[in-house]
């Protein structure tokens, strides 16, 4: 049984905190950060990174193309 996990890298300076990615995430991974970038926007970040499946939904709806998505397959065979 393999496990697929994902992660994202947000260009926090480019992010405008519109939260469209937060609504698009099927795994409720994303949220807006409490701190702000230099323009004063609460940027998007992974609040619950373990749930990310790397589906890239957040990245394709992002109007400012600030999300890069990575996905990796892990073999979950019993560890010896």
């Amino acid at each position, binding site marked *: 049984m393999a496990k697929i996990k994902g992660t994202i890298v947000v260009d926090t300076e480019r992010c405008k905190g519109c939260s469209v990615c937060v609504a698009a995430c099927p795994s409720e991974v994303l949220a807006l950060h409490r701190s702000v970038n230099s323009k004063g926007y609460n940027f998007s970040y992974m609040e619950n990174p373990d749930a990310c499946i790397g589906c890239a939904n957040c990245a394709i709806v992002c109007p*400012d193309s600030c999300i890069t*998505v*990575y996905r990796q397959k892990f073999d979950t065979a019993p560890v010896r």
Partner: protein
Amino acid sequence: MSEEFKVEIKPENLVYQKPALTTDATMHYCPGCSHGTVHSLIAEVIEEMGIQDSTIGVSPVGCSVFAYNYIDIDWAEAAHGRACALATAMKRLNPGKMVFTYQGDGDLAAIGTGETIHACNRGENIAIIFINNAIYGMTGGQMAPTTLVGMKTATTPEGRRVDLHGYPFKIAEMLTHLDGVSYITRQSVNNPVNVRRAKKAIRKGFEKAMAGKGTSFIEIVATCNSGWKLSPVEANRWMEEHMHPVYPLGDLKDI
């Protein structure tokens, strides 16, 4: 993230990144504006088709007036509403180029209606991308021809009235009657599924225009959360509830 399943940041694991043709310039659009999403789709389609060096875009007057700053291809800036006329000239002089216009509803469906209809009727081999957000976003949210009945805007504070302002202009439906048009579709970018569909539609429209089949018209029903006075997420929801019933999504003509 737990150490056991730590995803490594390396090129082999890359699923999605900013399209290569999207420039590093920060877009001037409001947070959550649909324009940015559509710009990314166009950049991806041009990149996938490998036509970066032979594509000319025509940017309109409206919020997307600075579109030429954001996608790294050749652009021309048209006078208000005249994008289709300019695209006609460029396509006829350079038949090998992919020429597309990128227009909003104030540009294409108001002052540029005549140019649009005649370009479609002549069957110019161009693609027209029409962003319909039912409002004049750039100038402060005035009523546009595409504004919904009852919709409140800066110039219709009591809502659009049929007896005074007429009906929403369904330009895509109207163009289906013209023989010069080979592909008319209406898409949206409110959720990931629709974004993927919109990308396919843009690609199909570009391919048809390049194959010389006639005009391709791709309408994108979009949000203007600043003009609608809603948050970006609420604007997407409002669009699904109110805009999509009036402007139903899907292919209207495909020959």
